[in-house]
């Protein structure tokens, strides 16, 4: 298992953001799949498994928490890291209760995200 690239699902309706993050994560050796909406993410999840997911809570088409619940049903082993805006910590904690692994407050940078992903994956590996 070690040595396999981390399978990451990026879900956010801000396209440019998802794109640039994807580029940067890919360069760091992660296997990244992009989804620009909750619906698209669920569709993707039917076909593939992932280790980690970065999920934006505020999206146009679906409420992030709803997406999270569905993720947890479809692929409980996928660790979900939520991205919330400043001041929405309550929503984030609701997400934790629904099974999200952790959350980060926007604006957050690539380095933070990478660190969080690596931390999440290593913990999972330890527990596995």
């Amino acid at each position, binding site marked *: 298992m070690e040595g396999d690239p981390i399978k990451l699902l990026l879900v956010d309706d801000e396209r440019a953001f998802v794109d640039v993050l994807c580029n*940067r994560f890919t360069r760091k050796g992660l296997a990244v799949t992009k989804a620009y909406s909750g619906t698209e993410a669920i569709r993707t999840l039917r076909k593939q498994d992932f280790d980690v997911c970065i999920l934006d809570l505020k999206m146009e088409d679906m409420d992030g928490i709803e997406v999270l619940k569905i993720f947890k049903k479809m692929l409980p082993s996928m660790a979900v890291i939520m991205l919330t*805006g400043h001041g929405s910590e309550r929503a984030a904690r609701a997400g934790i209760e629904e099974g999200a692994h952790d959350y980060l407050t926007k604006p957050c940078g690539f380095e933070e995200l990478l660190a969080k992903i690596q931390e999440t994956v290593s913990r999972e590996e330890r527990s596995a």
Partner: protein
Amino acid sequence: MADAVHGSQTRYWILLIIGATVTPLLLVSIIVLYQFREAHQKRATTHLEELVQKHKQNIDGFLDAKLGNIRMLASSFSFEELRQEEFLRERLRDLQRVHEPVFVDLGVIDESGTQAAYAGPFLLGHADYSDASWFQNAMQREYFISDVFPGLRGFPHFIIAVRSTWNGEPWILRATIDLVAFNDLVEDLRNSHTGSAFILNRAGEFQIKPPVDLMPDREFLDELLGADAGDRREIRVTQRTDQAGRRNIYLATALKGGSWRLVYQQEANEAFAEFHSARNVSLLAVFLAGLASVAVAFLLGRKTVSAISEAEQRTQMISQQMVETGKLASVGELAAGIAHEINNPVAIMVEEAGWIGDILEDDDWGTPENLQEFQRALQQIKTQGTRCKQITHKLLSFARKTDERTQEVDPRALVEETVAVSAQRAKYANVEMSTVFEPDLPTIRASLSELQQVLLNLINNALDAMWPNGGTLEIAVKHLDDDLWIHVSDSGPGIPEANLERIFDPFFTTKPVGKGTGLGLSICYGIVTRMGGEIDASSEIGSGTEFRIRLPIEREETEADGQETAVAGSGGEA
């Protein structure tokens, strides 16, 4: 202007309270007094009636008794006996002994009218009464009481005559009644200062006269006599004003079987004295109560109006606060939303820059693909940067939307108009206002009403501060570089240093509760800063205070230009 409204409201409330309290007071007083007067008058009149009735009985009783004496005499003795003067004198003495000198004399008159015998003080022996009306009357009836007349003796008197028969022929036994004694009896009726009694016969001739100064007028007497008392026991009561302007009450009743009238008169004031004094006390009480009501009305009126205006001011303050809070809240909300929105483009810009940095870490960062990637990333950065600009414009335009419409404002005209508006108030406050203008002042694009509001606020604060001693207030307008400067200086007591920092804070005021909202200067501050200007204050205790306002002449025109995409070279950006 608020004072005038205040004044008229106060008047209104005072009048209202006076009306509400005094009107029922008056109504009740009038009704009660009227009832009381009726009751009292009735009682007083009844009392007088009883008095008069008693005296009528006394007088009639007296007359009956005396008549009885003479009849007794006439039936007890014969003509022959009585015509003897010595005998007659003895009979007179008997009468006088028993009845006191009510009987003046006795006379025996035969059917021809010649006095056959006389006992008494006058020299009336053998007098001839055949022509006397009393004789003629007396011959026609069993007994007769005459009116008062002077007679042969020349003294007013009246007689009681009884007719008897002797040997088939009529003869008269006559007694004279002492008028003085009779008068005393009638006079006895006087029980007061202004009351007096008199007796009239049917023809209106006085039998017993009233005192001269109390004599009623002829007209009235005729009236008294004219109306006939059907029932001889009845007492008629009337009130009239006599020639001297006095109001009198008259009680009239029949005497002597109806041929005389006993009239008792009394001044109404005296008869109803009890009522009058009670009435006067009541009126005084009502008047005092009325005064008290008026005084209370004034107090209450003022209190009510100031309480109302205080409450109004408080309400105004609160609603102003609410408006301000609301504005702040909505601006805050908008700001929060906008901040959220800005996060995304900022994040993207940061990541793209990071991405460029990632590529540069490679040794072969200069490949054509990489260079293309650089271009793309840089373009993305610009795009997102523009997006940020659009987002902040939204907030700015919202902040500007709460302003009123702007126009070209001439600062000189603005100041002169505002000074003119305040002139009356300044005069009243003993403040001398002056203005100083630099020549050739430019116009400024601004909301006229907002600038007026600022200036008026500063002027009013200065006037309030210099009340009541007065002072000077100078407004100067200058042009310096790109700014317009307005100075408002007063010669008031000044602002202590501790307060100087806080004067532009909302709700900060040194005025007593209800006198100031504490929002004036904070609103000024808001208006001036929104225009891109500044306002500050400097002060010296005992000397005065100066407010300075700086307004930029050129204002940034940044209304919704969201279509802009080319950022570089457009210049004029702060």
